[in-house]
């Protein structure tokens, strides 16, 4: 079956005046089977699942995602296995939750942009975020994604000048990903005032495209604050992964499920 597109999902939510919740997990962390159970658990509360294809040298990620990535790779996660994982996930969720593949460019480059996007689309991936691929380097991948019906989501950061943010927003597909603070991924205690100002500023340049905010968001209160400032969706990664302990997986699963439920619930009441 064809999974829902990311753009359509976000547009439908917006029409219903709802905010999107986009949880992020690393495929294969802590193991293939366990990460499938985690993904299915958060899928009950997710509008889009952002699923990391782990890379050995994740320069935009903090300790949490670094550790999760290296454990996943050690336990056998690779690009082939990842595509299999996505097929299984979309089958089990009947294509209700679009999968956004988040990764680093070398993994795409190694297979080639056409082979990678072709395989991704065939396995049920709906969109792609390539963290270390800025606008200027993304022309070939933009074209390949368009050919294969994938949304290539581009990022805007607090350090992006306004004119450049406009260009990025224009080229981005599905939504515009706003990085809430400079630095790497990782749960933060509070949302900065700077982030809220940034949402208002970038929102104006998006010209109707949905704006989703990520990096550092760790609980329902923060997610709601960002949504009130104008975010159409909120991405939460490290805070969820932090809930996965080394022992007692069922307790980890319960903690992840509870956090996902709480954030998603919080967003419904904005």
């Amino acid at each position: 079956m064809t999974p829902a597109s990311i753009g359509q999902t976000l547009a439908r939510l917006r029409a219903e005046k709802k905010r999107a919740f986009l949880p992020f997990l690393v495929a294969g962390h802590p193991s293939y089977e366990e990460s499938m159970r985690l993904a299915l658990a958060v899928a009950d509360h997710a509008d889009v699942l952002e699923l990391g294809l782990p890379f050995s040298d994740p320069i935009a990620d903090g300790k949490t995602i670094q550790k999760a990535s290296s454990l996943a790779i050690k336990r056998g996660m690779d690009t082939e296995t990842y595509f299999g994982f996505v097929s299984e996930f979309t089958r089990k969720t009947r294509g209700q939750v679009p999968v956004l593949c988040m990764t680093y460019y070398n993994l795409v480059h190694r297979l080639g942009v056409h082979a990678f996007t072709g395989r991704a689309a065939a396995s049920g991936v709906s969109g792609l975020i390539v963290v270390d691929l800025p606008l200027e380097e993304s022309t070939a991948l933009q074209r390949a994604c368009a050919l294969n019906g994938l949304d290539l989501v581009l990022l805007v950061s607090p350090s992006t000048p306004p004119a450049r943010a406009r260009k990025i927003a224009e080229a981005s597909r599905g939504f515009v990903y706003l990085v809430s603070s400079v630095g790497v991924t990782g749960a933060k205690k509070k949302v900065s005032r700077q982030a809220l100002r940034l949402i208002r500023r970038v929102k104006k340049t998006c010209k109707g495209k949905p704006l989703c905010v990520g990096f550092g968001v760790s609980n329902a209160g923060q997610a709601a604050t960002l949504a009130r400032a104008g975010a159409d969706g909120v991405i939460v990664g490290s805070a969820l992964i932090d809930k996965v302990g080394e022992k007692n997986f069922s307790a980890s699963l319960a903690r992840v499920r509870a956090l996902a439920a709480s954030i998603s619930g919080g967003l419904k009441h904005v």
Partner: protein
Amino acid sequence: MKAKGYFGEFGGSFVAETLLQPLRELGQAFESAKRSKPFQRELDSLLRDYAGRPTALTYCSTLSRRLGFKVYLKREDLLHTGAHKLNNALGQALLARTMKKKRLIAETGAGQHGVATAVAAARLGLKAEVYMGTVDMERQKPNVQRMRLCGAEVRPVPSGSKTLKDAINEALRDWSASFEDTHYLLGSVLGPHPFPSMVAHFQSVIGREARRQLLKTEGRLPDQVIACVGGGSNSIGVFQAFLGEPSVKLTGVEAGGHGIRSGLHAARFAGTPDAGVGVVHGTRTFVLQDAFGQIKNTHSVSAGLDYPAVGPMHARLRADGRVEYVSATDPEALKAFTLLSEAEGIIPALESAHALAHLSRLKGKLKRDAIVLVNLSGRGDKDLDTACKELNL
């Protein structure tokens, strides 16, 4: 929209969006510093009065007799701190000061770039923090102590292969949060634009001096120039002055580790299936990686060559056929390490010993009056522990 900083199909700026603007500002500051006479004057004076330039060009009489041709060494080992790294560290530290940055961060493998950054920071009144893999901290202990002595903070990196690659990851992560007041003083011709061009510029003094010195002594250009290639800054530094001279053969020597077939090496140009074009640390170049693009762990007895990617300019020079790239194994490098010490009383860095290992292979293949220039990128004091253990001394 054409991306900047390409050398043929290699190079570019593959970094997270957050770093694009800081890189752009750095590129602009570098371009104006290059044109600024006061900047150039201050850098020249630092290089002369503080670092000890020009470094000597030494004719090796014993080695020349044994090998059957004329061997000259460009003595970057005589530069303050003991390696060519200081040329770049002083240039970038000065640039950081003009950009009003207060803090320098750097990665280091062998520790030479870390030490160079530490002393440049001390000299120019800046703060320095150096990321270093825990494996490298162990094998290059004296350099850790030197950095700390000069007031730099050494930050251990225990992740991944615990070597240079992982130190660069950490430095990039730090910079993506700290760029407002911090300059990332990258130590080789690697990373996103403008780093490769900038580091090449600051290292070009090596080749310029060597060329002038050789013309003065011998009245002609060398027949061959040999340098070791880790990231590739000392080799680019010396090669640049001869790129436009087709009569000069240029050879870069990579780390062959336990041998190419063992898979434990850092020879990015080995031509094996795992040595392909990839994108790592912000640049498109040759990278040691698996079939899916995960970066491989490398091995070399020399920490400074123990890195899975090579500067994008080298990828271009190889594609153009202008520079030939070969590799030397750990045992070959150790043999050359001993040879230069015994023959000439010069203890080379294990990195530079790779270039000398290739030199030895030319025995009997050149005319008596052939001139071969080797860039002796650094001295071997830092390697005594490793070398003595390997050589049972």
